């Protein structure tokens, strides 16, 4: 029997996620061609000219596309998401404390979570601020002739630092989405929009209950009407 599925992300949320994800990965790969010596030797000067052009080109969708999709496509869920990201409960801190145990396959009783668990919230915050950081330093480098030489000189190490840190975050994010047995269902939510009822109940109990209550409220309203 097909298990009941629950919508977690609408189309605009998913498009926003993937426009950010794809542009970020392209920027990370093309940018790291300049950081890792082995990679740059492999590509050679001609290859590096291509990665440089791609890197400059993708700055535009990275900066503007995701924000446009999210703000035009689904402003209300963006507001909800941001609100959750900046609201940290005791359960959230508990979740973060227990997370390493779960990550390494040790028994852990995870606390109740909303639509986004504390790890997802942390990832969201790192993504928001990390992206702003990369955009700020990156656009300075792209339009370096309009900035003070000392500002440009600092933009180099700061852009590098942000990229390598965000790269480390991405490694963890991709693994949790694709490979970690406890979290794998989450990727379906980001691709098809819905997750299984079991996953919603087991991993996002607070959100699941809210949905149930809302459903009950609307159905009773209908009955009254």
């Amino acid at each position, binding site marked *: 029997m097909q298990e009941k599925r629950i919508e977690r992300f609408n189309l605009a949320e998913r498009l926003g996620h993937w426009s950010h994800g794809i542009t970020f990965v392209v920027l990370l790969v093309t940018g790291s*061609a*300049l*950081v*890792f*010596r082995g990679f*740059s030797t492999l590509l050679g*000067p001609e290859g*590096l*000219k291509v990665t*440089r052009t791609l890197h400059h080109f993708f700055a535009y969708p990275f900066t503007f596309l995701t924000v446009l999709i999210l703000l035009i496509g689904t402003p209300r869920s963006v507001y909800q998401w941001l609100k959750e990201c900046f609201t940290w409960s005791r359960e959230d801190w508990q979740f973060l404390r227990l997370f390493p145990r779960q*990550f*390494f*396959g040790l028994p852990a009783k995870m606390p109740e979570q909303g639509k986004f668990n504390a790890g997802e919230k942390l990832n969201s915050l790192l993504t928001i601020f990390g992206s702003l950081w990369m955009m700020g330093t990156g656009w300075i480098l792209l339009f*370096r002739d309009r900035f003070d*030489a000392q500002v*440009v*000189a*600092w933009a*180099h*190490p700061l852009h*590098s*630092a942000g*990229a*390598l*840190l965000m*790269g*480390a*975050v991405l*490694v*963890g994010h991709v*693994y949790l989405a694709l*490979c*970690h*047995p406890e979290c794998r269902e989450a990727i379906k939510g980001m691709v098809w929009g819905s997750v299984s009822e079991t996953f919603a109940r087991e991993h996002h109990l607070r959100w699941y209950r809210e949905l149930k209550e809302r459903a009950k409220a609307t159905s009773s309203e209908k009955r009254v009407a």
Partner: protein
Amino acid sequence: MARLGMLIDLNRCVGCHGCSVACQAEWELLPEQHFTRVHRYEVGSFPKVRGGVVLTQCMHCDDPPCARVCPTGATQKRPDGLVIVDEKKCIGCRYCESACPYGARSFNRERSIVQKCYFCYHRTDKGKKPACVETCMAGARFFGDLEDPGSEINKLIRARKAIRIAGTGLAYVPPRNWPMDRSLLPPDFKEPGTVRVWQDLVRPAGKAAMGLAAAAVVTSLLINTFNKGGGHRAGKED
């Protein structure tokens, strides 16, 4: 091994810009590009004012930060002291421009590469003088081996009491008739803080962070695979 360098006698320089223009012609530079620049300065207060000229260019540093940050290896330090750019390898990322403590790098907009004074290695390798030395009508520029005590340049450095700019391949004869303000000359070499932070701190720490994340992922993957496999076998035995 030799240590090739240049001596600039500021007593002799008349500020005619001949070197700057000869260099542009030699390297077919864009009009706004100057490998060597002529700066005018004034000291004192009216009516006792004196003026003079200081020439600047690539200092051919002993430990050039431009070569350190170059991701393609286009900028290289030669064993004879010259800092050169393999223009075919340059991708125009302009990292070197920010790394240079002397602002001696010059971006070629048309070719999208960064260039600088090469001490005219295509000439000096054949025993000829650099274009700026050859053209200087006042005889203010000298090129030669700074390590050979008997070389013309070393004799002149001693005779004219020139100031060697530490950590670089340049020496200046300060103006004789005026108490020279050392701050008018290029400072002794010091690696810029941004380059140190970037190369010695950010890169190793950032790579370590990425490595740690990857190691954690692999560990987790192994543990979970092992746990699942173990559980599966146990189930079968039951």
